[in-house]
């Protein structure tokens, strides 16, 4: 069994590339006055979130790694390390990413970790690095368990996850319009991912893909970017702070406050933690479904169009 397999830490290796591409995008926007927007505090917050994500990975990565190695110890399967196995692992890990990402928008416990990635009202390459510090606490490493049990080595799975993350960096930009049609059909692109970051009712809960957009098309969550509806970036109710600590932890604390408020049933307390974001026991908040319905009440002509079907 290939128990001592190791791969390079590709995300750390890509840091110079990330910085170089951010500088190129920033210079492009500054010189051409198009292709996106930058704002100093927003960009710094995003970059600090990215640095914190790397730090939390160093500090807490042993938890997921220990879990994966425990699974590896009990599985009788070992698919080896051929290039085809790595390729298959990459595709299956991208499917895993789709579902973790979808859970991240549909389960508040996971959203508490992921919300920070959507908290910028800008969409540029620094937004790609606005990553969670608290991913470990979502326990979404469980979704990788089938891959390990099927015989993909944990190091290979994490290597493919790193490649997936690097791929997603370049799609966080407004500087690129559309890619060639064949590419847009199969791959996640800046256009598809702009939709994912939209707070427009039409664009909520769409385009969860990491690398291959085909998952959204297969599972019915694909919404194309429309020329007649510019993407409005950010959260449904935007943050009023650039403080990275608040960006990182605010939803966790909000969950705690909701769950511990007096007068709720056990079921309601549980729902505040795991129901879709926006759920409330008294209907005082809106889930994405409610937001879409209210939009349709104001704009009935949109019913049946992408994002409202």
């Amino acid at each position, binding site marked *: 069994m290939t128990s001592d397999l190791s791969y390079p830490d590709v995300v750390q290796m890509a840091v110079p590339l990330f*910085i170089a591409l951010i500088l190129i995008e920033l*210079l492009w926007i500054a010189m051409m006055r198009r292709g996106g927007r930058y*704002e100093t*505090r927003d960009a710094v917050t995003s970059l600090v979130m990215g640095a914190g994500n790397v730090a939390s990975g160093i500090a807490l990565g042993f938890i997921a790694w220990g879990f994966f190695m425990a699974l590896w110890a009990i599985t009788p399967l070992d698919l080896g390390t051929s290039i085809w196995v790595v390729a298959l692992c990459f595709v299956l890990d991208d499917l895993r990413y789709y579902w973790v990402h979808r859970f991240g928008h549909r389960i508040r416990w996971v959203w508490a970790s992921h919300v920070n990635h959507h908290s910028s009202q800008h969409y540029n390459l620094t937004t790609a690095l606005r990553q969670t510090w608290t991913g470990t606490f979502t326990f979404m490493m469980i979704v990788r368990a089938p891959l390990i049990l099927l015989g993909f080595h944990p190091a290979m799975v994490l290597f493919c996850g790193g490649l997936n993350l690097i791929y997603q960096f370049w799609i966080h930009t407004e500087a690129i319009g559309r890619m060639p049609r064949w590419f847009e059909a199969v791959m996640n692109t800046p256009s598809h991912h702009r939709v994912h970051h939209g707070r427009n009712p039409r664009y909520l809960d769409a385009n969860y893909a990491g690398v291959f957009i085909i998952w959204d098309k297969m599972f019915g969550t694909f919404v194309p970017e429309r020329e007649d509806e510019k993407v409005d970036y950010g959260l449904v109710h*935007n943050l*009023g*702070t650039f403080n990275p600590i608040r960006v990182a932890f*605010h939803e966790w604390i*909000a969950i705690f406050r909701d769950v511990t408020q007096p007068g709720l049933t056990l079921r309601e307390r549980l729902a505040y933690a795991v129901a879709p974001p926006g759920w409330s026991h008294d209907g005082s908040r809106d889930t994405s479904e409610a937001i879409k319905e209210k939009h349709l009440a*104001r704009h009935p002509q949109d019913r049946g169009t992408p994002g409202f079907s």
Partner: protein
Amino acid sequence: MPLSVLIALVVGGIAGVAILTHLFGFSKLHRFDDAEAARMAFLREWPDVATGTITLSADRHSALIETNKGPALVWAMGADSSVRFLADADAQDTKTGLSIRLADLTAPNIRIRLAPDERRAWLTSMKVPR
């Protein structure tokens, strides 16, 4: 990659981006063109809430909005805007305007610039304790 190199890259990268964005003029606070622009910024977040009188600050970085859910504030968040209702707000005078404290982790202390005569009018409209 050695940790020391990674740290130097990250710190240098963040500092470089901060300096460049500032030098390029991307630190300017959003300014609402007029009261209608402030109303649109409010409706962007609360499209179903009815709005009434809008009081735009002299510097046009913030606006107080009467709504059917009580007074609300829309203010510049960098190049964009954010909105909060002020029902549970605690407002204090500062040297340059008002400090509005909310029991809201994502907007705990909103500082807005107002002239002394504007402050009186805003506090009256907000009907919140000073």
